[in-house]
């Protein structure tokens, strides 16, 4: 079926100092079409949609919206012309309520009471229940996304841009979202859908434009292609699936029993009675929607949050009251999710950052002084082993792209020869090829006898690397189960707020 053309992007080029984000990009979207923009991180997807939304101006090229020239100077103009956007990292204000958040994204919001009524009406129409008077800080990730979507829908957009919308949702929430998007599409709203999750694109999208290094490398109809074909178009090379080297499971290396700690983070989730064990050579995958205690669990394991000694044991040595340095000495390394500021000191060089966590285990101090030669050597080893693209080890961590810094930080923790490794979001923001490499090295380390805990929101990733699988939900951890034989439905139920008995209850009902 052919649709009347809504938006046409022609020959768009945008360069930043040092990088060409988009070069000569051309594609078009029909009315009511769900169009995927596919590409690795750094392929220029985000820059492209920012130009369509008026946040960034293209250097050259032209856009036409319904036949007339379209040059939005600012988002307000884009919104007026019917282009709305749901952001990858939510553009919400935690201390304001839902209605206020919605009002901020509108040009001429009606009075608050009327707006609240309209929010209720729209949220019911699209099956996205939402209470306008609730504080956004108290909402779950899925509910927050609803706020963003409703903010867009209230303005009757002709084109809705969605930047990686499903990365924080449970499988069931994804279902609801897709239903909403299909409904919108059938009502004539075009959707520009950005993602690198290929299965989703196959089930949802009508057309796809694939970007690589800022250029359009292919357009295709996702339903007619396999996910693997599209992935290879994205990466430009054949993909390797990580392979598992089966090592014998050893003794328990990390044991956590009945760990409860209060969250130090505002709007955080306190941990409630967490118990699990990880054996040598085992990878435990911990899933869960963001904000269910992942950050707190990492803090409690790394030693930034202390508990009583017996709650956390490394190689049966009680370390619950030890700080990060002592735990590293005992054999546990941890990689937090937030790269700029938590995992790395952004303004320090890679060499200095390498020292910061590896100093203890790699013995990089000599009678109280930093062994710079040894540290530099270690940093260079990481850069070589993990293919970190950087001019050298002396550049500031901030100067690296997110994916490259992530590779460096993963390498830094994985190459310390620790017996317990805890990682939060190992491949967040990393392109497909590098993600496969990081997963492979996680498996390799496990094969060499390390106990690994991987906290992630990417279920496919967990199913690929983990031997056992548990879900964090509201600060509680489900009982770990073997990954083999788990179905997506079961996982969804585990994530949807169910625990032990409740799961059984749901299943039997």
């Amino acid at each position, binding site marked *: 079926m052919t649709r009347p053309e809504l938006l046409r992007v022609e020959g768009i080029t945008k360069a930043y100092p040092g990088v060409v984000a988009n070069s000569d990009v051309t594609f078009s979207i029909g009315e009511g079409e769900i169009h995927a923009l596919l590409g690795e991180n750094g392929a220029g997807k985000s820059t492209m949609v920012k130009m369509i939304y008026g946040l960034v101006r293209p250097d050259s090229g032209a856009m036409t919206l319904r036949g007339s020239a379209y040059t939005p100077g600012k988002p307000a103009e884009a919104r007026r012309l019917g282009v709305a956007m749901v952001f990858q990292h939510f553009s919400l204000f935690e201390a*304001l309520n839902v209605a206020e958040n919605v009002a901020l994204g509108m040009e001429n919001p009606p009075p608050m009471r009327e707006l609240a009524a309209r929010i209720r009406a729209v949220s019911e129409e699209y099956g996205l229940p939402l209470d306008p008077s609730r504080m956004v800080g108290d909402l779950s990730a899925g509910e927050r996304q609803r706020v963003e979507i409703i903010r867009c829908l209230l303005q009757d957009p002709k084109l809705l841009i969605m930047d990686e919308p499903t990365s924080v949702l449970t499988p069931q929430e994804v279902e609801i979202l897709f239903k909403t998007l299909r409904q919108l599409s059938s009502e004539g709203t075009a959707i520009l859908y950005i993602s690198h999750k290929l299965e989703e694109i196959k089930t949802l999208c009508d057309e796809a434009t694939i970007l690589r290094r800022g250029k359009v490398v292919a357009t295709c109809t996702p339903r007619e292609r396999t996910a693997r074909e599209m992935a290879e178009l994205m990466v430009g090379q054949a993909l390797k699936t990580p392979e598992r080297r089966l090592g014998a499971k050893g003794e328990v290396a990390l044991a956590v029993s009945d760990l409860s700690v209060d969250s130090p983070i*505002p709007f955080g989730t306190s941990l409630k009675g967490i118990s699990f064990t990880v054996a040598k050579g085992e990878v435990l995958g911990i899933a869960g929607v963001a904000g269910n205690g992942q950050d707190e669990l990492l803090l409690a394991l790394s030693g930034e949050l202390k508990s009583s000694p017996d709650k956390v044991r490394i190689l049966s040595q009680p370390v619950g009251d030890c700080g990060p340095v002592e735990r590293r000495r005992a054999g546990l390394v941890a990689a937090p999710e937030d790269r700029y500021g938590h995992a790395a000191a952004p303004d320090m060089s890679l060499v200095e950052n390498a020292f910061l966590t590896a100093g203890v285990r790699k013995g990089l101090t000599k009678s109280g002084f930093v062994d710079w030669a040894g540290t530099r050597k270690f940093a260079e080893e990481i850069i070589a082993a993990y293919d970190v693209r950087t001019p050298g080890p002396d550049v500031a961590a901030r100067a690296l792209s997110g994916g490259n810094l992530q590779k460096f930080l993963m390498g830094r923790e994985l190459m310390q020869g620790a017996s317990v490794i805890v990682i939060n979001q190992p491949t967040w923001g990393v392109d497909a090829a590098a993600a496969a490499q990081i997963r492979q090295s996680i498996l390799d380390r496990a094969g060499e006898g390390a106990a690994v805990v991987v906290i992630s929101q990417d279920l496919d990733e967990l199913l690929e690397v983990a031997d056992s699988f548990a879900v964090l939900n509201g600060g509680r951890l489900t009982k770990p189960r073997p990954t083999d034989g788990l179905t997506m439905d079961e996982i969804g139920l585990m994530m949807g707020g169910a625990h032990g008995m409740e799961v059984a209850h749901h299943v039997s009902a």
Partner: protein
Amino acid sequence: MDIGGINPVILIATLMASAVPILMAALGETVVERAGVLNLGVEGMMVIGALGGFVVAVHTGSPVLGFIGGAVCGAALSLIFAALTQIFLANQVATGLALTLFGLGVSSLGGQGYNGIKPPPTGQLLPDFLADLPVVGPIVFGHDWMVYFSILMTAVLWWVLKSTRIGLIIRAVGESHEAAHALGYKVNRIRLMCIAFGGAMAGIGGAYVSLARVPQWVDGITAGAGWIALAIVVFASWKPWRVLIGAYLFGGITVLQLNLQVAGSGIPVEYLSMAPYLITILVLVIMSAGRRGKANGAPASLGQNFHASR
């Protein structure tokens, strides 16, 4: 009518006037901090406003023009802070402290030759027959117009911050500058305007000290009022009406302890002098204690500079 040599009617009437400088400065700072900017230069802006207002009033003979002059001087000084922090992304704490030192120094220099001059009086707003009524006269009707203006400003700011779109945008910018930027709001421009507003309010507050409270020019005339205004903003949880309570409490205890000194109470003068600071902070701490929810907390982006680099 007098209690221990102190007339409560006079006391209340005086405290309302004596709280005006702090109230004005703290209201201005409330807006600035709600927009996510921490300007520690309140004291400097007040003292510049005190001098500017005094000079203008003396030369024109009009206290109204004097207050406008004070506002302009305070705003002008705050724009230095705005330029440094919003355009050149300087550290807000250091810049604010420097602003206070700069304001004190400049006012001391510019105030040479104005010592001992009397400014034109700031008039009573309402006719005498109202002000002469017993009890309500002095408390409700007997003030100069700045007292009413400061209360009006409290109400206006409360309404603006709570119910208007401008207020919502200001709060949004202070809450998450990145999100506000993503939605297309000009974060730095909004902050710049809030800083200028805060400067003008502090300037008016300062001018009230030199034109109505003291009224003459002496070096360092504001005597730390800017600092107490800063503290009041924090302990009042960034809410205008609580700022008013804090300012009146401080003003009240200041007046009370002066009266106690005059009445010759047995408490040593040193303790009386420190009482306003101590009690105000204590009461406000108690008021803001136990509320740990984000709704009553500090603006999340407070003190962080924003640059739209990505």
